């Protein structure tokens, strides 16, 4: 055990939880109308609770346990209820408790990201049911495929900190949910302005800082790998934000705070799978591509397809995750400043593997999300009734108001 590595992963765990609570909660909460702000905060908290309980009961085991003959697909239940995890057990140079806790924070933020797709209209009970099943059917298996020794890991698929495991699954989950439950009443004709951009910007700052734990923590040690991961993460965030800002400036004459922070998230989500493998110059480029691609994806989804993925989860996280995961295939090359391809693997090989991973996770997530929603809708309506939507979820679902100034 190395106390320095442990110190950094303990810290990273705190940082990643901080991304969700209050980071993401504020980022999303500010973007909705004031009558729904508490519903978003509440959903982030409730999902945190549920993911934690699922993780303790079966989640950790399903993702990182030994699945025996089914290990290609899913971990077994041998570590259900964290059995076998003692004060002494290690994972590499850090205690297993720390590893499990760090990974749990990823299992928390992924379903929380999906909230952005169905914000302002989904029924609270349906959200809790959906999130629980989605964790079991989408997140935990995919985490096992990529990080738990499953089939993608065996193929040599590279996803350092979750571009695929977290961002593609969340982005696809969100847009499918948005399509199944339908647009918010009034979308896209009525302006549904963020009710509190200062809240969103606050959350964005927290996300940026917390992401250092997300990416640099994924090194699972405190050394050059973590350092480089933090550096490229930061560069991509800055470049993504700057790029989005410049596009808005050029197109509309006025750059917006919403644009800057969205570009930042795009840059962060996109560098995530690559953060352990690439160098600073690649990060500049990845951030620049993220700003561009995610920008145009957002506009296309909102204005052309008119799909109400309300807080733009798919175009930012989904597209960003795909772009980043594929770009690993290129920029990992040591000739491009990367950490280097595995022995005997060519760039084309690696790109192929990355593509297989992206496509299969995308398809599985889309299919499973759709199925889960159908299942949940048999038990409870997915959507609140129209009057509740007009009144706002805060009062209709939680009998509370965000503000009483």
């Amino acid at each position: 055990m190395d106390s320095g590595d442990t110190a950094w992963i303990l810290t990273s765990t705190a940082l990643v939880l901080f991304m969700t609570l209050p980071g993401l909660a504020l980022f999303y909460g500010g973007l909705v109308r004031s009558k729904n702000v508490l519903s978003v905060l509440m959903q982030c908290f409730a999902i945190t609770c549920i993911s934690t309980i699922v993780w303790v009961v079966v989640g950790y085991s399903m993702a990182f346990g030994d699945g025996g003959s089914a290990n290609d697909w899913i971990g077994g239940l041998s570590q259900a209820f964290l059995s076998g995890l003692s004060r002494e057990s290690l994972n590499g140079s850090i205690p297993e408790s720390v590893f499990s806790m760090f990974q749990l924070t990823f299992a928390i933020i992924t379903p929380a990201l999906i909230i952005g797709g169905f914000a302002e209209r989904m029924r609270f009970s349906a959200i809790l049911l959906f999130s629980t099943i989605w964790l079991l059917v989408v997140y935990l298996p995919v985490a096992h495929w990529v990080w738990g020794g499953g089939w993608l890991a065996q193929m040599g698929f590279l996803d350092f900190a979750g571009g695929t495991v977290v961002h593609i699954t969340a982005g696809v989950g969100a847009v499918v949910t948005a399509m199944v439950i339908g647009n918010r009443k009034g979308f896209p004709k009525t302006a549904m302005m963020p009710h509190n951009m200062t809240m969103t910007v606050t959350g964005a700052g927290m996300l940026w800082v917390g992401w250092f734990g997300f990416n640099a923590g994924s090194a699972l040690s405190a050394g050059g790998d973590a350092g480089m991961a933090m550096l490229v993460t930061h560069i991509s965030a800055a470049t993504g934000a700057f790029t989005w800002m410049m596009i808005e400036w050029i197109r509309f004459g006025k750059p917006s705070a919403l644009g800057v922070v969205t570009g930042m998230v795009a840059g962060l989500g996109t560098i995530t799978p690559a953060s352990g493998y690439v160098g600073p110059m690649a990060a500049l480029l990845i951030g620049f591509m993220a700003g561009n691609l995610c920008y145009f994806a957002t506009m296309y989804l909102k204005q052309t397809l008119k799909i109400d993925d309300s807080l733009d989860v798919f175009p930012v996280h989904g597209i960003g995750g795909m772009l980043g995961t594929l770009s690993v295939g290129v920029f990992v090359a040591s000739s491009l400043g990367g950490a280097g391809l595995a022995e005997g693997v060519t760039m084309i090989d690696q790109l192929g593997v990355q593509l297989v991973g992206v496509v299969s996770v995308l398809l599985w997530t889309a299919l499973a999300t759709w199925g889960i929603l159908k299942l949940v809708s048999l038990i409870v309506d997915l959507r609140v009734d129209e009057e509740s939507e007009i009144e706002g979820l805060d009062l209709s679902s939680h009998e509370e108001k965000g503000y009483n100034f």
Partner: protein
Amino acid sequence: MKLVVAIIKPFKLDDVRMALSDIGINGLTVYEVKGFGRQKGHTELYRGAEYVVDYIPKMKIEIAIEDEQVDAVVDAIIESARTGKIGDGKIFIMPLENAIRVRTSESGGSAL
């Protein structure tokens, strides 16, 4: 008695108050309203879509006065609130049958 109601541009409030003060009017009530009229509101961008916010923040001032003060008050408001651009606002004159001061129960002109 009359109730003079003026709808003006918010940043002109202080000027109007001073102008009224100068002609001896020291009591009034104000609140924020939104106006629709000829003046076009600002636009806001959201994800590349432009939304015209068609209401304009205005300040509404209500002044209860004796009939003979009406002209002076109206003139003072016009002078101090005018910028000459569309949206400078309106003044409405409404009849007021009585005014009572809560603290003393005085009524009529002496209540103002």
